[in-house]
C-alpha cells in the first residue's frame, strides 16, 4: 500500500516540483552490492535531489523484480535474472536504467571453485560433472553457462545442481557432493582460507557480464523529472563508491579516499563485519553506466537455452537515456 | 388440548434391507393424561416417541395437537441419555429452554430456581453435569423439561441408566412432581412395574412390525399403588403386560 502512495506523490510533484519531495521506495537486499544506494541514502545524495528515498528490504532477489513490475516499489536494485526477462515478455514492463555491479576483468567477484584436492584444473575438465548453482535462471546459471561455452562446452555437457542458497553451495563443495560450484566474494576468500576449495576460473576473466542493475517501475520511469534526479544522485553515489574502493595503483587495488567511511556505511546497512566486507566489493561502472550490449547477449543466451518463454527486444527493457540525461546535467 | 397420533407408520430403508419399525399406530393423549408405552427391545418405542417429538418424520400418517386455540404448542423431552449440555452448569442447563423462548432475565432466574428446587437440586446450581451422579443428572434433565411448561412432556426411559435403588426413589419423586404439574405425558419404559406404577393408560407394542397390541387402562388411584392393599391389583396388571410381551422379549434377546 505504501508503494502505491509513493507513486501518486511522485506523479503529483512532477507538476509542482519545487517544494514537495518525491518519495521513492527502493527494493533491495542487505548485501554489499547495494552499496551505492546505501551511500546515497546515508550521505544524503538523494535528499539533495529532493528525493525521499526509503529502503525496502527483501530477502530474495526475485520478489524485488516482481514488486517493481507490480508497482509496489518504484525502484528495484538486484541481480538481472531470467525471471526479469520473462516478466517483461509476459507484459509486465520495467526498465533497467543503471549498473549495480558487474563481472570485470581484474576484479575478483565470482568464480568457479572445485574442492582443493580435486583433480580438475581447468574448465574443460568439467565435462560431465556436477556444478552447483543457486537457482535455475539465476545469474549463477548464466555465468556457468557462458564460461563453459568459452571452452567449447554447453549446458548439456554438465549437470547443473540448484542448491538454493550460498551456504548450501559451500557445504556441498566442502563435502564434495558436487564437483564444482560457482561462488562470489567474500565467500571465495573464506573458502580458500579455510582450505577446502580452490579457484579454477574467474568469471570476470572469461566474460564481461552485467550481473545486476537498477530498474524502474514503468510509472516511475514515466515521471522523467524525478527519474533523472534519482539517477543523478545515484551516479554521484557510484562515483563515491568507485573512488573509495575500486581505485587501482599499479594494477593492484588500493584503498581510495573515504575508504573507511564507505566500508562503515556498508557494514552498518548489512550488519556485517568490516573485514568481511572488504573482501567482497563488487566492480561497478564509475558513472553507473550499463553494459547495454551485454543485455542483448544475455537475452539471446537465455532464449537459446529455452529459459525465456518468448524472445524480447532489448530496447523494451533497457533505458540508457535517463542516465545519460542525468549525467549531462 | 389433546395430541392425536393418526395412522403413523415408519419404515427404515437401509442400503441392505427395509425395516418396518411402526405400522398403523393410532391413539390420542388426553389433556393431563399420563400414557406409558411398553414393549420389548426394538419394537419401535423410541421411534414413535421421536416422531411425536418432531425429531423424525413418519413414513406415513401424522401427529397433531387439537384444540390449541392458535397458540403454538410446545414440547419438552427427557432423554434416556439425559443429554445435558456438558459445558453448562445445572442452572444453565435447566434454563436452556427458557432462554430459547426469549424469556426475560427475571423470569429465567425465578423459574429456573423454582424447578431446580422442585427436583431437589438446590445447592447444585453451579455444578457441571460430570460432577453429578446419574440420578442427579436425570433430575436436572427433568427440571429442564418442566421449566418450559410444555403442552406435552415426552420421556424416553428416563431412569433406565440409574441403579435399582435410585430408580425406585426417582419414580416416587416423578409421581409427586407430576401430581403438582399434571402435564400431558408420553412415557417410554421397559420396566413393567414402572409402567403400572405411573400410567393412566399403558400402550403395549409388539415387534416386527411395531403395532399396538393392546391399550390397558390402569384403574387404580394415582398415589399409593405400591402399598400393600393394592398389591394384588398391581400384580394382576403386571402379569397381564408381561404375558403380552414375554414371547417378543425372548426373541428380541437373540436378534440384537
Amino acid at each position, binding site marked *: 500500500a505504501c508503494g502505491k502512495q509513493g507513486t501518486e506523490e511522485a506523479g503529483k510533484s512532477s507538476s509542482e516540483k519545487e517544494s514537495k519531495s518525491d518519495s521513492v521506495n527502493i527494493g533491495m537486499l542487505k548485501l554489499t552490492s547495494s552499496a551505492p544506494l546505501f551511500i546515497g541514502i546515508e550521505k544524503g545524495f538523494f535528499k539533495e535531489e529532493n528525493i525521499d528515498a526509503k529502503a525496502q528490504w527483501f530477502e530474495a532477489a*526475485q520478489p524485488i*523484480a*516482481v514488486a517493481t513490475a507490480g508497482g509496489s516499489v518504484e525502484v528495484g536494485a538486484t541481480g538481472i*535474472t*531470467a*525471471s*526479469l526477462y*520473462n*516478466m517483461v515478455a*509476459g*507484459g*509486465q514492463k520495467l526498465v533497467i536504467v543503471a549498473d549495480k555491479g558487474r563481472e570485470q576483468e581484474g576484479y575478483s567477484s565470482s568464480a568457479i571453485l572445485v574442492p582443493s584436492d580435486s583433480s580438475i584444473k581447468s574448465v574443460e575438465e568439467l565435462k560431465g560433472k556436477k556444478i*552447483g548453482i543457486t*537457482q*535455475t*535462471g*539465476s545469474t549463477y546459471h548464466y555465468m556457468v553457462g557462458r564460461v563453459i561455452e568459452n571452452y567449447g562446452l554447453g549446458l548439456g555437457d554438465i*549437470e547443473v*545442481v*540448484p*542448491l*538454493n*542458497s550460498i*551456504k*548450501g553451495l*559451500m*557445504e*556441498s563443495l566442502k*563435502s564434495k*557432493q*558436487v564437483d564444482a560450484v560457482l561462488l562470489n566474494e567474500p565467500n571465495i576468500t573464506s573458502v580458500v582460507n579455510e582450505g577446502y576449495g580452490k579457484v579454477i576460473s574467474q568469471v570476470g576473466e572469461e566474460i564481461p557480464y552485467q550481473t545486476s542493475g537498477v530498474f524502474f517501475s514503468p510509472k516511475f520511469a514515466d515521471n522523467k523529472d524525478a527519474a533523472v534526479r534519482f539517477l543523478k544522485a545515484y551516479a554521484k553515489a557510484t562515483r563515491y563508491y568507485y573512488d573509495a574502493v575500486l581505485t587501482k595503483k599499479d594494477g593492484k587495488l588500493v584503498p581510495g579516499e573515504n575508504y573507511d567511511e564507505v566500508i562503515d556505511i556498508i557494514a552498518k546497512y548489512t550488519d556485517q563485519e568490516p573485514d568481511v566486507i572488504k573482501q567482497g566489493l563488487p566492480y561497478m561502472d564509475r558513472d553507473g553506466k550499463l553494459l547495454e550490449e551485454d543485455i542483448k547477449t544475455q537475452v539471446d543466451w537465455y532464449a537459446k537455452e529455452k*529459459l*525465456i*518463454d518468448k524472445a524480447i527486444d532489448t530496447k523494451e527493457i533497457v533505458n540508457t537515456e535517463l542516465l545519460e540525461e542525468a549525467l549531462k546535467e | 388440548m389433546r395430541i392425536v397420533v393418526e395412522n403413523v407408520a415408519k419404515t427404515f430403508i437401509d442400503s441392505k434391507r427395509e425395516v418396518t419399525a411402526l405400522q398403523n399406530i393410532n391413539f390420542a393423549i388426553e389433556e393431563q393424561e399420563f400414557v406409558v408405552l411398553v414393549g420389548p427391545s426394538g419394537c419401535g418405542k423410541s421411534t414413535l416417541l421421536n*416422531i*411425536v*417429538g*418432531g*425429531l*423424525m*418424520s413418519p413414513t406415513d400418517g*401424522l*401427529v*397433531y*395437537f*387439537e*384444540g*390449541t*386455540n*392458535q397458540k*403454538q*404448542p410446545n*414440547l419438552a423431552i427427557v432423554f434416556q441419555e439425559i443429554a445435558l449440555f456438558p459445558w453448562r452448569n445445572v442452572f444453565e442447563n435447566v434454563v436452556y429452554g427458557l432462554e430459547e423462548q426469549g424469556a426475560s432475565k427475571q423470569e429465567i432466574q425465578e423459574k429456573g430456581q423454582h424447578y431446580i428446587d422442585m427436583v431437589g437440586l438446590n445447592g447444585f446450581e453451579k455444578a457441571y453435569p460430570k460432577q453429578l451422579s446419574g440420578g442427579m443428572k436425570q433430575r436436572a434433565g427433568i427440571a429442564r423439561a418442566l421449566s418450559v411448561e410444555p403442552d406435552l412432556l415426552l420421556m424416553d426411559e428416563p431412569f433406565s441408566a440409574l441403579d435399582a435403588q435410585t430408580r425406585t426413589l426417582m419414580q416416587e419423586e416423578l409421581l409427586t412432581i407430576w401430581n403438582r404439574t399434571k402435564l400431558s405425558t408420553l412415557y417410554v419404559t421397559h420396566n413393567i412395574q414402572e409402567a403400572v406404577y405411573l400410567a393412566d393408560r399403558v400402550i403395549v407394542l409388539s415387534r416386527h412390525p411395531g403395532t399396538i397390541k393392546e391399550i390397558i387402562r390402569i384403574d387404580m388411584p394415582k398415589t399409593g399403588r405400591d402399598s400393600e392393599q393394592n398389591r394384588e391389583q398391581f400384580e394382576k396388571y403386571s402379569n397381564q403386560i408381561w404375558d403380552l410381551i414375554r414371547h417378543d422379549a425372548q426373541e428380541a434377546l437373540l436378534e440384537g
Partner: protein
Amino acid sequence: MTEPRQTITNRVAFLEQRIPKYASVLGITGLLLLWEIICRLNIVPPLFLPAPSAILTDAWEMIATGELFKNLFASLYRVGIGYALGAVLGIVIGLILGFSRWTDAIVTPIVYSIYPIPKIALLPLIILWLGIGEMPKVTIIALGVFFPVVINTFSGVKNVDPILIKAAVTFGSSHANVIRKVILPGSLPMIFAGLKLAAGTSLLLLVSAEMIAAQQGIGAMVLHYGNLMITTKLMVGVLLLSLLGLLFNRGLQWLENKLLPWK
C-alpha cells in the same frame, strides 16, 4: 375435525439431509469456471493469474514432452518414502508418548519446541548432515509428516477408553501387547485424521524439499518456473499438487473405511 390442528413436523430433518453425488464436483468446477471468466474478462493480467484453459494447454504440452510425468514420478517416490517414514515414526512415537507418562513428560516439550523450527532456515545444515541426494529431501517430507501424525496419535491414545486397557491387562496382556492390540487400534480414527492432515503437508513440503539439488520433481519444476517467472507452467505444477492432494485424501479415506470396518 373442524377444530384447529397443529401438526408436528420433523425439526431435525437437516441432520439427515442427503446430498447428491455430483455436489462434490460442483464446487471445484464452479471455482475453475469463475477463475476462467475472471481471466477472460482480463481483470487480472495473465502473468499474475493465468487462465485454467491456458494452464491446461501448457499441461498438455508438458505431458506430450514427457516432462510432467518424469517430474511426477520423481516426486511421488520422495513423497511416498518420506510420508511412510514420517507416518510410521509418528505413529510409533505417538503411541509411546501416549502410553508412558515418563516419555510423555520428557519428550513432548521437545516435540513442541522442534515443531516450529522452519526447515527452510536449516537447509544448509540439512545438506551438511544428509548430503544432496534423496536423503535430505525425504527427511524434510518425513519431518513435516511426523509432527501432525505424532500429535494426533498422542491425542488418540489419550482418548482410548482406559477400561479397554484394564480389560487387556486383566486377560494377561504384556505392555507391548496392550500397545499393539488395544492402544493402536483404539487410536486409529485419530491417527487417520493426522494422516490426512499430513498428506497435505507432505505435498506442501515438496517445494522446500526439492530446493536441495533436485533436477526433477514437481517441487523443482515449480521452483524452476517460479524462478523464471513463467507463471502458466508454474501453475501447472501447483494444480498438479492440489490434484494430488485431493487424490491422496480420497485414498486415505478409502483405506480408513477398509481398515476400520467396525466403525
